[in-house]
């Protein structure tokens, strides 16, 4: 049988007086940065794909000077 706990001896939980540095519990900052990073990376990938596509066209289907 478990011993009944005397409420007066229960551990008090006190939140730290200072919030953890950098931590954004809402996750908003992380979401925004993630979206920005995804957009930037996607843009870079699209541009790269276009550059390599143009190069591929040059190599395999070269438009002549005339």
């Amino acid at each position, binding site marked *: 049988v478990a011993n009944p706990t005397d409420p007066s001896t229960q*551990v008090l939980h006190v939140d730290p007086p200072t919030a953890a*540095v950098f931590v954004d519990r809402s996750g908003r*900052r*992380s979401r925004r940065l993630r979206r920005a*990073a995804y957009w930037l990376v996607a843009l870079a990938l699209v541009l*790269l794909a276009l*550059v390599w596509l143009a190069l591929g066209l040059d190599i395999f289907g070269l438009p002549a*000077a005339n």
Partner: protein
Amino acid sequence: MGVWRGRQRLDEPGEATGRQRSGRRRLRRRWVLAAVVTFVLINLLVVDAYANARFTPDHKRSDGGGTAGVPAAVRDDGPVVDTRDGQTATYHLPERTIALTFDDGPDPVWTPRVMQVLRKHGVRATFFVIGSQVSRHPEISRELGREGHELGIHTFTHPQLADLPAWRRRIEYSQTRAVIAYTTGVTTPLARLPYSSHVSDLDDANWPVVRETGQWGYVSVFNDTDSRDWARPGPNVIARNATPEDGQSAVILFHDAGGDRAQTVTALDLFIPEMKRRGYRFTTVSEGVRQQLATSSTETRVTRSELVRGALLVWAVKIADGTFLILWLLLIVVGVLTLARTLLLFGFALRHVRRRRAPAWSWGPPVPDPVTVIVPAYNERATIAATVRSLATGTHPDIEVLVVDDESDDGTADEIERLGLPNVRVVRVPAGGKAAALNVGVGLARHDIVVMVDADTVVEPNAIHRLVQPFADPKVGAVAGNVKVGNRRRLLGRWQHIEYVIGFNLDRRLYDTLGCMPTVPGALGAFRRDAVRQVGDLSRATLAEDTDLTMGLHRAGWNIVYEESAIARTEAPSSLAQLWRQRYRWSYGTMQAMWRHRRALIERGPSGRFGRRGLPFIALFSVALPLLAPVLDIVAIYGVAFLDRVETVIAWLAVLVIQIVTAMLAFRLDREPMRPLWALPLQQIVYRQIMYLVLVHSVVTALTGGQLQWQKLRRTGEVAAQPS
């Protein structure tokens, strides 16, 4: 040292699984993002290498062999060779006509100066431009077009075309044509082969290239006279070289890029009026042969796809060049910082050693005051007995060891009680993390001097006594001990040993001299209890509670010093994964502590002194320098692939030598055997990369506001098992 968040321990199975899953997902996303960014960077560097002719350096020239395959009608005739439509025709300019041609531009310095002379004399010319240069200076190409000059193709990267495969030759032409079309809105099919001169110099290697050029719709342009301005023989000689025989027409070769072209500019200013005086007229190549080329137009229409391709190329080259320039600048910053750090370390560390080892050196009267040693512990059964025994049997006159058991469930407390040492107390507290456990220890300590020691650390018998001696100086608030890696039999341990010896014997001596010690290590540090109380005990706001406390003490006006003779051996992570976790927490915690104390930068008094001297120093050498370290590896790989390999390897070895010399000094100062230093070159290949990736990871976590938890490291008990 439980894994906790707020009041909750996270190593309870159900709780942990959900969080671990989401953590793993986030980590996977970050790795994918890092891989994509690396991929983009590699692509940009490849584009940069291509645009700078680093795949096939333009100085590589092959022997063209004989001339038997070149038709005599071509070799003996005009400089304009048209091999389009399967025919071969050559053309001269009309009599007393000159077409000035300029190769290798546009150049931001010399092309405008050449244009200025041409403008002054009302002359138009033909510029055979290099595509990559057009991409870099599109405004000059536009200006050439606006002033009525003609642009011809001189390839994209100026290679020896005969040495290239057909597909490379093809893109050298089409890409240059595209960037000309994009920058000027017009184009001509005129092309000039790099390294070409008079048609009589055409050889068997280059003749097929000329024919192929025609098949692709381009007209090859050679020259009648070569000014040889590249040799810089003087303006008069250049003008004389360029002068055609009396009355004859001439396509004349000059250069508007590729070096100092001042002589070319002066020579033009002499040559043009003189030729005009002799009755010559000046024209462009196309206009000069227009009558003869009547059947096939020299002007071609710019297509939309060509404009798009041109725009993509121009921007790709610009961005790639910009990326490389940034890398280069960062490399210089890294070089300067590394050199500055090395000089500072050498200068200040040696000064520190001289002062401390001087016969007259003393902290003051001996400090025999009683000491409470606080050992926070969470599931440390493998190591705790050795730690506590080494502390409790120390040579200091009165040592109380207080173990704060952070709700261990592996019998840590039983292990201590089994030792039966009279001066050891164990306090069991609800799980709250290391900072909370230490605060309990500070609160329950019976003495005014407290020493904090990690539960995986074994101290030397006199370590505590040596550690507290600086308290003879009433201004000293905390003392950092000399912590060494105990488990250094394996490579990973040896690497950390080298790092610790450098960190403790050079960095800490430097910080001590400058009065801005950033961290009294949790593994071995002594504090005045009042000082700790004064700054509000240890905070849970950061994961580097020792750094946070040290900075707080600085700001409160206490001196923090280093006592190198107080030696402890700690157990370093024994696997890469454990090392990653530990360093991730350290670097994240250090950044948290710096940010938390950022106001010190603008405050007055001791806080301001620490803020303006210590914080920038720590930010520069502990955060910025390691963050920029990847630049060294990126440039090294680029150098080996595309630049001078020997020079690159020498530069890399020079950095290694600096590190070896630094490490040797640190080992010598610490009287450590040099043998483990053989592992230092290997450290450059795995360990260093892990260190900066960890830092990058921490920075990303800080920026995104992610929360990092204390991670329990697995103990092997190797250090505890060693004889003391």
